[in-house]
């Protein structure tokens, strides 16, 4: 099995999906001969031709609206938005149309589209290129939001997203696009959606995260293991609809929980998880849940971004506070 990075695994999943299903169409800015600004679509135009890999004019609203129209015809558009900061013009179409086409036609039409978008900080990118705004989308009824955290999961989850008959926002944590290559088999096998992935079992505390922060979360768990603290690490993966049951079960076992995400704290997905854990599992909580997050401010331009990004030390500190509570 080849070792590959996440961005390579994404490319492989796209190829696999396109080979297996003629109705899968790639579109977006620079996805053709250039293979995408992050090279996720490299080679697709050569293999599948101009009719299946469409370089669009520069207009994100158009990319989303076009995808809705294509999807209504039974195609499976997989559109790329270059950076999360530029996804905002798609929202009218995502919320008003993509996510409700099946609902408002009572199943007569549906919208099997995927919007892929790299997100998050940590790569010293220009202004507006490093946001983590998953909470804008995770709250949209009818829109699935899926975030992988390893090459192999990126492969299997992207296949699942493409095969899913409903619209999926597939958010790619670009900070780990090229970190930690791992063996990925081109099996054509999709991984399940709508379920948390427990990456590590443990008894003392539950650490919940997604995307690039899984890296720091696992680092913290390693570190804590050496100190004799056993962490359960949960990768939420699908942020909508969200699998609260796995998290509730884990916290019922450990009694303590830290949630980690890069997005600003207020009204983010961490809030939903924390609220639900306390509402439905209050009796199990041996300590207050703790959120380790970005600040409630604009994602800084890169010179200062390290001050914004939650890091392993922050997680360790939060775990310490949580464990010491009594």
């Amino acid at each position, binding site marked *: 099995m080849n070792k590959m990075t996440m961005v390579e695994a994404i490319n492989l999943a796209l190829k696999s999906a396109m080979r297996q299903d003629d109705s899968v169409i790639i579109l977006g800015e620079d996805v053709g001969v250039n293979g995408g600004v992050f090279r996720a679509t490299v080679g697709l135009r050569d293999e599948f031709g101009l009719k299946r890999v469409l370089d669009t004019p520069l207009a994100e609203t158009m990319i989303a*609206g076009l995808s809705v129209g294509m999807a*209504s015809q039974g195609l499976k558009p997989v559109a790329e938005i270059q950076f999360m900061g530029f996804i905002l013009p798609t929202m*009218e179409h995502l919320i008003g149309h993509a996510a409700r086409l099946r609902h408002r*036609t009572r199943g007569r039409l549906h919208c099997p589209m995927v919007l892929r978008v790299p997100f998050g900080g940590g790569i010293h990118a220009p202004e507006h290129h490093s946001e983590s705004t998953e909470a804008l989308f995770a709250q949209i009824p009818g829109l699935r939001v899926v975030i992988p955290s390893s090459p192999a999961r990126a492969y299997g989850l992207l296949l699942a997203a493409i095969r899913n008959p409903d619209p999926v926002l597939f958010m790619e944590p670009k900070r780990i696009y090229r970190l930690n290559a791992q063996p990925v088999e081109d099996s054509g096998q999709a991984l399940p959606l709508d379920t948390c992935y427990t990456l590590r079992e443990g008894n003392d505390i539950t650490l919940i995260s997604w995307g690039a922060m899984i890296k720091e979360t696992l680092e913290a768990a390693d570190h804590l293991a050496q100190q004799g603290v056993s962490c359960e690490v949960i990768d939420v993966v699908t942020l909508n609809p969200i699998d609260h049951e796995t998290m509730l079960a884990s916290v019922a076992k450990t009694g303590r929980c830290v949630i980690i995400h890069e997005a600003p704290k207020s009204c983010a997905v961490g809030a939903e998880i924390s609220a639900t854990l306390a509402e439905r599992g209050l009796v199990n909580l041996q300590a207050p849940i703790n959120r380790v997050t970005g600040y409630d401010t604009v994602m800084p331009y890169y010179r200062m971004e390290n001050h914004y990004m939650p890091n392993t030390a922050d997680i360790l500190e939060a775990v310490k506070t949580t464990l010491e509570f009594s």
Partner: protein
Amino acid sequence: METIYQAQINFSRFLSASGQAEQPLPSWTEQPDTLVSYYRNMVLARQLDNKIIALQRTGQMGTYASLLGAEAIEVVLGERMQPNDVLVPYYRNHALQMLRGLSMEDLLSYWGGDERGNAAAAMGEDFPNAVPIATQALHATGVATAMKIRGEKRAVVTVCGDGATSKGDFMEALNVAGAWQLPVVFMVNNNQWAISVPRSLQCGAPTLAQKAIGAGIRGEQVDGNDVIALHESVSNALQHAREGKGATLIEAISYRLSDHTTADDATRYRNNEELKAAWEREPIKRLQTFLHQKGWWDEVQESAWQNEVAQLIQQGIERYLQQENPPVEHLIDFLYAELPAALQEQRARLIRNAQPGGSHHE
């Protein structure tokens, strides 16, 4: 200074406001069938429109957008489109949607606040109404892209108002339709008003058709009260599209003879002279005069058809009024192909609350 590009916008009309031929008519008008069919469908459209407004006034219908004044555009599009074309409509295309297969009770059901009105199998691949202005123009380009990828000889028709031409979606759609030579007909029902905002405030250009120029597609203006001019323009545009030659923007000059919707009162912002003048140009009387002159339509046919239409409408309304509420779980069941586990509890609560004794039982 060198002139590197020239463009022009043409306007066409065959029948004058008083129903006289202004120029030689196309040969298909030598047979009565098409014109009489247009006439009959326009009469149906208008009577139904009146009735729906009456229903609304008596609390049996929600906020409704009248098509009064747009009948010609509706019936020409409806009769010129092929069944395998796709319509991506806006909220004022009731007659057009019915000519595409939507039943009267499904139409009424939609405006009566029920999404089942968007569900009828007879609608085929047509989109439901776009409520957010101009978004439909982009869906139309997406449908057209699918046709183009598959090499099909079909066309997409999308309709919007004059106000909608100011929104980015509309202009982005024209642009991609031009860049990719997509088989789309963009019909602008320029009824001179966007709620209270007159056409003159939407755009500084003398025509809306000229928005086609910046996108490199065909653009033309047509009298939207003249079924003959519309027929020519729409037929050409559809053929152009089906032959793979690209998109057309048709600006049909009409007038919104009604309030914007039943929630609006146009006397607040619109002067009565203008409205009266517009009634002089309306499409039904114009065609009627022409048909009378030709001897293709008379008083007897008129009253027979008016009666038939009244009956059809009465039946449609009765079926609508008899509709039971949909099952409450419909509020959740169609959100995803399969109900996610995360929604099971909410679905159960929804059903429980709707039952006798539940918090939402009526």
